[in-house]
């Protein structure tokens, strides 16, 4: 059963819900930050954050508390907190709602986060197109500053904290954390080789934590109720995947939206209970579980986990649509949780056209530093285009898989995998559709439909 919650979303529908008076009135805003700064030690805070089992909401699912614990004080260099609000992964539309409708949760999260990692400055990196988000965040920062929650002496303490909004200028790759850091420093947004990791050499050469915007926004709630209690809100708390999460649903459903739920709803619940069912009562064909880089699932896919030790064993033989969405559960079914925004595709959607659409995206957004990604993304696009236009051969289908496999593991950043994995997913799950185009049984003009 779905467990709707409203920790982040309580102020969403309220008049002026994004302003300080409403945040303070409705959710006792800034009380947690005050308690942390005036009565907790850094170590206690990080221990509490670990107990909350917050898995990073940027896509990789890294445990937030553990990431904070990597930050060690440096003899001469300051530390920075950098918040990733570049939200650009196709199919992802959750962070924007927080910035527009509950920006104070972000600012309060930044205060607590700075204290937790020993930083005095936080930068919120917002993609440039999100003008209303930037406006609301700046307004929230200024309100908090006027009240003495930020600045030289937040809550009367001697722990100065400043929060700034920084913007990019249109480049999906700047969501990758090291590219984002280069962009913050005023450079081209090209990803850096790791190691060194940001915790050692991050923004401006200093130790840095990069957290996703939703990750930081949920921190006041988690610390406020206590890490363990927060973690236990989740249906899959036992898999160290705790708390609550924003879930998005888009594509072919009757009511696309963003909702807040205890961690662990199933895809079927999201489609039926949240999304109001598949558009026009059609049959479900496929879902992309968490942004375009996560491999597609077929509606008729089943869980294959005969091993009793597998965390997925309880769902062995069941539909993938009935597995709770979690970092490890989605990995177990051959895809990824990603950003928790599900793209739904109904019967009649052309999977070759869907792949073609996404390969256009990846071709456009590759930063071009690594040959396998730069050339590979071009090959993928050209080959799928050839097939779609009826000029392809069976070798072209195999070629697609070869090119994708050659990108995997051979690039500086995870954009390469993010391009290759979904390509391989479409080929593996829907190969007969590609073959139908090669044989001329399907044609672009007649069959390449995305809007059904």
């Amino acid at each position, binding site marked *: 059963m779905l467990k709707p919650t409203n920790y982040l979303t309580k102020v969403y529908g309220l008049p002026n819900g994004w302003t300080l008076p409403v945040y303070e009135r409705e959710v006792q805003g800034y009380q947690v930050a005050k308690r942390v700064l005036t009565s907790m030690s850094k170590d206690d805070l990080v221990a509490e954050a670990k107990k909350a089992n917050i898995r990073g909401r940027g896509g990789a699912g890294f445990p937030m508390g553990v990431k904070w614990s990597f930050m060690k004080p440096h003899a001469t260099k*300051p530390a920075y907190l950098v918040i990733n609000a570049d*939200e*650009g*992964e*196709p*199919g*992802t*539309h959750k*962070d*924007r709602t927080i910035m527009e409708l509950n920006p104070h949760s972000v600012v309060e999260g930044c205060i607590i986060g700075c204290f937790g990692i020993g930083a005095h400055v936080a930068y919120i990196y917002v*993609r*440039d*197109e*999100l*003008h*209303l988000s930037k406006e609301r965040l700046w307004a929230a920062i200024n309100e908090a500053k006027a009240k003495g929650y930020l600045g030289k002496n937040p809550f009367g303490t001697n722990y100065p904290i*400043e929060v*700034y909004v*920084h*913007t*990019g*200028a*249109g*480049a*999906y790759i700047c969501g990758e954390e090291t590219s984002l850091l280069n*962009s*913050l*420093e*005023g*450079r*081209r*947004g*090209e990803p850096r080789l790791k190691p060194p990791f940001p915790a050692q050499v991050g923004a*401006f050469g200093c130790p840095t934590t990069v957290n996703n915007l939703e990750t930081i926004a949920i921190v006041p709630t988690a610390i406020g109720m206590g890490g363990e209690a927060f973690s236990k809100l989740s249906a899959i708390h036992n898999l160290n995947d705790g708390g609550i999460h924003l879930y*998005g*649903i*888009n*594509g*072919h459903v009757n009511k*696309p*939206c*963003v909702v807040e739920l205890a961690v662990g709803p199933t895809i079927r619940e999201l489609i039926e209970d949240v999304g109001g069912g598949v558009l026009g009562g059609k049959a479900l064909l496929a879902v*992309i579980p968490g942004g*375009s880089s996560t491999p597609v699932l077929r509606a008729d896919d089943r869980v294959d986990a005969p091993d009793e030790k597998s965390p997925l064993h309880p769902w062995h033989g069941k539909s993938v649509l009935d597995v709770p969405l979690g970092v490890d559960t989605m990995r177990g079914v051959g895809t990824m949780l990603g950003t928790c*925004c599900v*793209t739904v*595709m109904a019967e009649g*959607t052309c999977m070759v056209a*869907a792949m073609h*659409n*996404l390969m*256009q*995206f990846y071709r*456009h*957004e590759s*930063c071009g530093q690594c040959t396998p990604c730069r050339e590979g993304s071009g090959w993928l696009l050209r080959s799928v285009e050839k097939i779609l236009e009826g000029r392809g051969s069976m070798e072209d289908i195999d070629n697609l898989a070869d090119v994708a496999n050659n990108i995997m593991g051979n690039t500086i950043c995870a954009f390469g995998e993010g391009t290759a994995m979904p390509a391989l997913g479409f080929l593996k799950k829907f190969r007969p559709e590609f073959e139908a185009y090669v044989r001329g049984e399907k044609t672009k003009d007649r069959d390449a439909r*995305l*809007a*059904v």
Partner: protein
Amino acid sequence: MPFALSADRERELEEILKRYPTKMGACIPALHLCQDQNGYIDDEIVLYVANRLDLPPAHVKGVVTFYTLFNQKPVGKHQLWVCRTLPCALRGADGILKHCEKKLGIHAGETTADGKITLRTAECLASCGTAPMMQVDKDYHENLTPERVDELLEKLRA
């Protein structure tokens, strides 16, 4: 006359510079200020930003060419971006784009003859739950229908 920022934008740049430990940190915000004023970024602006922030012009030029939102040539008075990526395409983005092209008499990537409107496609704008959508200058317009597009275009042309 060489390029210079207006007095209020210059003051804003002063504020921006205080936020970063290096002058380079202000490079992208400074370019945004210049583009706001001038509409696009030419070599004079590159030189101006380079001098103002003590950076090699080649660095600034490299930044300008990396990011899609920096215009390197003049654009229309209004910018129209129709999101084309999969979640929007599933909700009819293609039809919205074709409708815009027909009404404006131009293709994506072009500017109307009167210089008023530049039409482009965008990649996912984090608005997939309210698709199809487009951005007009700084505003998002969501859950689009051809009728709503017509209303919008009327306003822009007025």
